[in-house]
């Protein structure tokens, strides 16, 4: 095991403090407003806080475990997300082999490439090789019913659940002058900003939310919640610039990008859920729906964050 960097220890300790405070508030709220478990908002809040504990503990272990730990953790997240996604698609018997290859070959290979830092291949493996290979395997089975829909769904699932998520551990491969050995902090930074944005949008929306932003997609999202949440999460991101290689202004810009991509990513994933007629992607984490319900914002922001940092700050 690698000795964690003092900044990482500081970040983890900070998250711990935030969670302890959140849990205490949740406990008091429950005693005051919902002693019999009848207040849905309070119950939902406590479910979320409990799930954050699990997430933070897992993240902490992975971050301390270094590159292998982080890569394994996100490979598992990809697997679970891909499993949820494929469950909701129109894939059928004839896609069986294509799906087996996607799960047991494409996914592990993508994460292996990330683990050995082969940027030139992992950045095109799924958009080029899997993109061409998967429809060939499906075509060989000879079932042409809804063929285009089926192969498009599988490719989309791979891009979202495997390609995009794998850009989180890929942050470890960036070589940033003066930031050596601290890349895990970029992951922590991305996750914290995304999560804070979700939480703050939720809080602002509950406090002053009036105007629905996309009533058909996500009835709980409001303009007030979005603007308040985005601005305050950007402020938090700027305030955390000490854990990044960015200046405060740069951190604010990157946080804003993360927050916007995360927000619109959430809308896109909601549109898919509406289309499929489900409320949640899965049921893995109590109070949080499935893996994709928690990861949707990270999915959309991770590749953009990765490339912005790579072009702006990385030597490789």
């Amino acid at each position, binding site marked *: 095991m690698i000795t964690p960097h003092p900044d990482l220890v500081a970040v983890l300790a900070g998250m711990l403090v935030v969670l302890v405070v959140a849990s205490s508030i949740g406990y008091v709220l429950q005693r005051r407003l919902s002693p019999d478990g009848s207040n849905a908002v309070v119950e939902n809040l406590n479910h979320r806080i409990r799930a954050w504990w699990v997430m933070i503990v897992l993240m902490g272990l992975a971050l301390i475990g270094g590159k292998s730990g982080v890569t394994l953790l996100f490979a598992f997240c990809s697997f679970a997300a891909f*499993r949820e996604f494929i469950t909701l698609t129109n894939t059928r018997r004839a896609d069986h082999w294509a799906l087996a290859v996607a*799960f047991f070959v494409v996914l592990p290979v993508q994460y292996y490439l990330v683990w050995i830092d082969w940027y030139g291949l992992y950045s095109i493996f799924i958009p080029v090789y899997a993109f061409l290979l998967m429809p060939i395997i499906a075509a060989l089975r000879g079932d042409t019913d809804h063929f285009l829909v089926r192969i498009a769904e599988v490719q989309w699932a791979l891009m979202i659940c495997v390609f995009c998520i794998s850009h989180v551990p890929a942050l470890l491969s960036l070589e940033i002058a003066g930031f050596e050995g601290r890349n895990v902090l970029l992951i922590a930074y991305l996750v914290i900003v995304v999560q804070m944005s979700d939480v703050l949008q939720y809080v602002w929306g509950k406090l002053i939310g009036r105007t629905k932003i996309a009533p058909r997609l996500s009835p709980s999202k409001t303009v007030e919640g979005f603007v308040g949440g985005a601005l305050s999460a950007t402020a938090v991101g700027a305030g955390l610039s000490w854990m990044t290689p960015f200046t405060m202004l740069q951190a604010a810009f990157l946080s804003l990008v993360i927050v916007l991509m995360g927000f619109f990513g959430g809308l896109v994933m909601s549109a898919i859920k509406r289309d499929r007629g489900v409320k949640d992607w899965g049921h893995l984490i109590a109070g949080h729906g499935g893996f994709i319900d928690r990861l949707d914002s990270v999915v959309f922001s991770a590749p953009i964050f990765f490339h912005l940092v790579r072009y702006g700050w990385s030597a490789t």
Partner: protein
Amino acid sequence: MRGAAIGLAGTLILLLARFLTAVRGQWDGVAPTDEQRIYYANHASHGDFVLIWTVLSRRMRRATRPVAASDYWLKSRLRRFIGCDVFNAVLIDRERASRANDPIALMTDALDAGSSLIVFPEGTRNGTAAPLLPFKSGLFHLARARPNIVLVPVWIDNLNRVMPKGEFVPIPLICTVTFGSALHIAGGETKKDFLARAEAALLALSPKANAR
């Protein structure tokens, strides 16, 4: 030694089932209690009773025996080990002409010994596009032989997509196992009426049926 191997095999099968299907039990009609029951379920895959088993508590698992075809589960040593030792299945002979034991008698023996049962009244795996095959009469005879034991319909969703008949590599998909409300056979109820009622109760648990 043998006991440890059985325990280990059981744990591995449960882990594999969870890894592939993230299966969740949904107790919509009855609660997960120790009450003696006959669970009857739709049948699309050899993994069906594994999924039901996975969502039962450890104690319920020990008291619940699947009813399975001996021609399949006695074919090799591995199958015999999994079928007889790990799952403690009640094995019945599907060949009416050659069989020595009456399947209903084997099942009532298991019930009289205190076990709950998992049965698949369609009699064979459903490879068709229809959600259910017509029930065989076994469920009716079993219900009439032990009218005081409740019957619980169990809908297994999605497992046919995980491993369709004839494929040997499973693909991971989320499955659910939904338990419906208990039913009893009514005094004087005809075979046709009872089987129709039991089929309808099971089909009503299918998410696709509910979506329509």
